């Protein structure tokens, strides 16, 4: 009995790694551009479908497909910011929310008409079912474990990028005060676009892992957005390591909820979020 619960909680922790990946891209885009990209989840699902086409349509191995989508997603993020989002930046939150909202609906229905409503998954090969027994009847899936480690590496890399590189300093400068940044000669539009390109890269990486580990369909985007948003807020806005803690908290809550009843899985995550948010609106690790 205890082993079942421990198994569920371990699963939840590992699921939290995936949620943290969704969340760190969102966190970066919020921190840099001061808005919540409503289409964040839909972009993850869009890249997942791209991976599906590359693997099952063209027969490429999953790793190669992921390697191909990474630069595509970077350029996609860059262009999305440069050509669309930049035009509505600095005009208040309403236009940016409405534009990304419209984008979200376009992506969902575009995917629906291109791929149909079926639930999909990218075949990852033998790694999907491989497990490591850690004693006492508890098993860790190899793939979830790799995803969790990747999340940690990714957060570390993003943290280094933002706080220990020239590019990171520029991104933080334009996000703190765009007028002053422009005044000292920073090309803010370009820096925003590069930051969104980095967000695109995190989207590609999370999509690669998500599409192999979980099922998805064209309407999966909003649930990914909500869980990413919850992880960001729970962790404390702007805190990258906080998103990992937030993601793990949500993953564990969902895993425990699912143990009672499959239908409780998602609800348990939302309830945990609302309870912690009411008690601690600034999140667990608020920056500054």
């Amino acid at each position, binding site marked *: 009995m205890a082993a079942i619960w421990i198994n569920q909680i371990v699963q939840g922790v590992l699921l939290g790694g995936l949620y943290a990946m969704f969340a760190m891209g969102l966190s970066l885009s919020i921190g840099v551009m001061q808005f919540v990209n409503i289409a964040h989840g839909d972009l993850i699902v869009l890249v997942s479908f791209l991976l599906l086409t590359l693997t099952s349509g063209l027969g490429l191995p999953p790793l190669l497909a992921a390697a191909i989508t990474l630069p595509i997603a970077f350029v996609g993020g860059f262009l999305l910011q440069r050509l669309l989002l930049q035009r509505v930046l600095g005009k208040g939150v309403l236009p940016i929310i409405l534009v990304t909202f*419209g984008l979200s*609906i376009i992506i*969902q*229905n575009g995917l629906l008409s291109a791929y149909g409503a079926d639930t999909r998954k990218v075949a990852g090969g033998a790694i999907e079912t491989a497990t490591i027994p850690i004693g006492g009847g508890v098993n860790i899936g190899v793939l979830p474990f790799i995803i969790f480690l990747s999340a940690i590496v990714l957060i570390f890399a993003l943290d280094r990028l933002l706080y220990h590189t020239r590019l990171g300093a520029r991104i933080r400068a334009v996000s703190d005060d765009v007028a002053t940044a422009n005044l000292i000669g920073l090309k803010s539009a370009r820096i925003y676009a590069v930051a969104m390109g980095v967000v695109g890269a995190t989207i590609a990486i999370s999509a690669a892992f998500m599409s192999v580990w979980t099922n998805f369909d064209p309407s999966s985007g909003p649930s990914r957005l909500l869980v990413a948003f919850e992880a960001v807020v729970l962790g404390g806005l702007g805190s990258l390591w906080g998103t990992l803690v937030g993601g793990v908290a949500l993953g564990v809550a969902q895993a425990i909820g699912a143990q009672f009843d499959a239908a409780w899985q998602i609800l348990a995550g*939302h309830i945990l979020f609302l309870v912690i948010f009411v008690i601690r609106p600034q999140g667990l690790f608020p920056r500054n």
Partner: protein
Amino acid sequence: MNASGTWLIAIGRLALILGAGVLAAAPFLFAPAQLQILTQFLSLLVIAIMWNLLAGYADIVSIGQHAFVGIGAYAFFAFAALAGVNPYLSLLLGGVTAFVFAVPIMLVIFRLRAAYLAVGSWVVAETLMLGAGKLSAFGGGSGVSVPISVVKAFGAQAAARYATIYWLAFALAALALVSTYLLMRSKVGIGLTAMRDNEEGAGSVGVNLIALRVLCFLWTAPFLGIAGGVITLQKLRVAPPASFSITDWTVYVIFIVVIGGIGSFEGPIIGAIVFFLIREYLAEIGLWHFILLGVLSIAVILVEPRGLWGLARRFVSDDLIPASFRPPRQPVMSARIASENAEAS
């Protein structure tokens, strides 16, 4: 004010009055199928007016207002079908219930700043929808039909029932329009208009931004709740994904308001008409109508953020419905300045 602009205003107001006249006589003019479409139109119009009040004026960009429609639907079912309360009274109690839920929901989501409030309100709506799926008295996740006895209370025959439901939707829409109009004409409306135009400025001249936000949020809840009951009478069923439908009560509503013109009294009305025209005539393009609406709303925000009405307003010299206060007209000012100049010299 040029002559053509004045004419356009007159034509626009005439069209509005004619439209209202047709709607007021609709049960005598139209077949049940058309009447049902008009009922949907009026229900959606109510929700659009309320979303516009929040997003267009009070700076509360919510993506979770469908929660109140769902709460109203479930409350109507609870009172009318489970508790046996008079069905008409149950509709009103649906509005009261939505209001009661609005208070704690507001306390939670108002802790989030504007950009986060949108997704925060969505989380709350999602939680309530999933929670509604756990209520076994309401059929759990698959929902339950409204009992025949409750349905018959609105008319024994189908035709009479459609007319009754239409009148309910008509009364609700009229009440929503007139009361929101009066709200906009009151002192509150001045504050809201100031807030729409410049939030910081409004705050610095003494507009109580928080009080206005609270008022607007609580104002919309009962209307959405009653609309939920009226919608349930059309669908004859409560079910979590249908009663709390984000597509029907939030996505469409946002498109309606954005395309029609956010932050204007005319916007939701124009948007709802355009939306129903697109829906009726482009139904065969299926999913593409969503994509069309999405592209159209993004284009509107990029080209003319005040929507179709904002575009029309470039050629038309006045509001169709004078809901917002304006400073005294130019001639008055220049006349006074002229007289002051005359005195000075």
